[in-house]
């Protein structure tokens, strides 16, 4: 346990020092994250300014969902999302083998050696959005809703980790395909809006099969007291989803080690 904590700390130190070698670029990347993520809240605002709306949802309520998405990303991505780039590069260049001659879990090593702080941009944008939303919505957060929110928030991070595992696992086989990021961006667009805009079947799909609704909608709904009982099933689905994506990652790794890159 202490061994793994030490690996984490030294991995984080090295990754940070590496990024800091190009300070200017690092700061610009944070700015890119910030603007890139604020794009969709801006478009939502433009829609509402035109006098239109998502039926049953006020602008601050929608922005609450989008703000939560950014904060979840901002908090969790520094710890694992860089793994995709790490594996993409290493498999392409053939240096992933070097990860396999280290005496610790390959998955853990891939995660800690790709610590990346540039998602601070998303976090800042998310905090701004959240504050705006919370100032304009009347909600009283009780201990119960607060705890529920934290639980859902944790599961949200778990789903993002699952997606990261699926994407990086794919890269063991689909060598050098940087378009996995575009796939991720396209799929997570569904997280940015109230679930009620989708058709019944699609709502079930993103709640109980690919639990995209857990990423931002459910945590937001818990604060707005709009949760239904279905969320309990969704929690179970999330756990399964995580286990399956983890198994998928290891399966792809196994294929990599028997195919020899």
């Amino acid at each position, binding site marked *: 346990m202490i061994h793994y904590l030490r690996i984490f700390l030294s991995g984080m130190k090295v990754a940070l020092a590496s990024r800091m070698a*190009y300070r*200017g*670029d690092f700061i*610009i*990347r944070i*700015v*890119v994250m910030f*603007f*890139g993520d604020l*794009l969709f809240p801006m*478009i939502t605002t*433009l*829609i509402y*300014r*035109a*006098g*239109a*709306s*998502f*039926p049953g949802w006020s602008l601050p309520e929608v922005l609450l969902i989008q703000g939560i998405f950014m904060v979840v990303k901002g908090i969790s991505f520094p710890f694992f999302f860089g793994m995709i780039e790490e594996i993409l590069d290493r498999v392409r260049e053939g240096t992933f083998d070097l990860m396999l001659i280290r005496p610790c879990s390959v998955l853990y090593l891939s995660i800690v050696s790709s610590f990346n702080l540039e998602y601070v941009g998303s976090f800042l944008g998310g905090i701004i959005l959240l504050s705006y939303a919370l100032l304009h919505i009347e909600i009283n957060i009780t201990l119960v809703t607060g705890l529920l929110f934290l639980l859902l928030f944790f599961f949200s991070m778990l789903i993002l980790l699952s997606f990261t595992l699926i994407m990086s696992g794919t890269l063991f086989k*689909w060598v050098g*395909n940087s*378009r996995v990021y*575009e*796939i991720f961006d*396209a*799929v997570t*667009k*569904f997280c940015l*809006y109230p679930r*009620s*805009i*989708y*058709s019944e079947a*699609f709502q079930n799909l993103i709640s109980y099969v690919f639990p995209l609704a857990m990423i931002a909608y459910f945590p937001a709904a818990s604060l707005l007291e709009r949760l239904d009982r279905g969320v309990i099933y969704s929690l179970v689905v999330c756990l399964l989803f995580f286990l399956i994506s983890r198994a998928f990652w290891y399966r792809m790794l196994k294929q990599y080690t028997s195919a020899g890159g």
Partner: protein
Amino acid sequence: MLKTIKGVAFATYKEWAAYRSHILVSLFIGPVQFLVQYYIWSSVYAGQAGTIRGFNLEQMLVYYGITTLINYCIMDFAGWNLQMLIRTGRFVTFILRPVSHRLFAFSQKVGHRLLGFWLELVPVYIIFLLVFDIYLVPANVLWFLLSLFLGFMMMFLINYCIGMAGFWLTRTEGIRSIFVIFRDVFAGVFIPLTFFPGVVQNILFFLPFQYISYVPVRVFIGDYQLGEMSLELSQIVGLQATYVIVMLLFSEFIWRMGIKRFTGVGV
């Protein structure tokens, strides 16, 4: 010149054909992003009959559908490629060639997009037609094709200019990504430009970005509007052509300064 374009374009086409599995990812991404827009606007128009900012639901879906397809026709990596060549120093080999790098990059784009036409545009068009029941036919084929070609040129010239920043700066990836976000927003890729506040619309009218995507899309629909402007197709396409020529001259100017700097400092 045509011979060069044909030769390079054909080689690029063949080279990229090996990466078709990468290009085919578009068949997933395009429809998924369209599905998001489909749900957004279906929901928005459900609570609001009639038109919003000059669009009814059907026109809005056509707007996003055609924006997606136009992007398959005009997107390119010219800027990224150029700055990579400069940073790694491989650009030197192009100075020694009889063909200018700009023409070379343009020809590459032609070949790359030719491949995109078969692998992205045609299949996605069929998906839009069969799955979403979006029937995409331009109001006036000739004006649209002309406007599309000008959009193709505009996209290339703007990207190429941004790539040329590499002559002056060592790391331009960050700046380029920020620029790309603004380029797409101001070109109307994410939302029709008529949704912006009036003042912004009037400014956007004078910037080159609308001529990349927004203008071809409006020409496709057959009616042009932005801010207080409402123009005939011939007028806006004429304006688009003027902007492309200005941009061409501007890029020529930057190119000459850039080469001077590159050969003066490097090599």
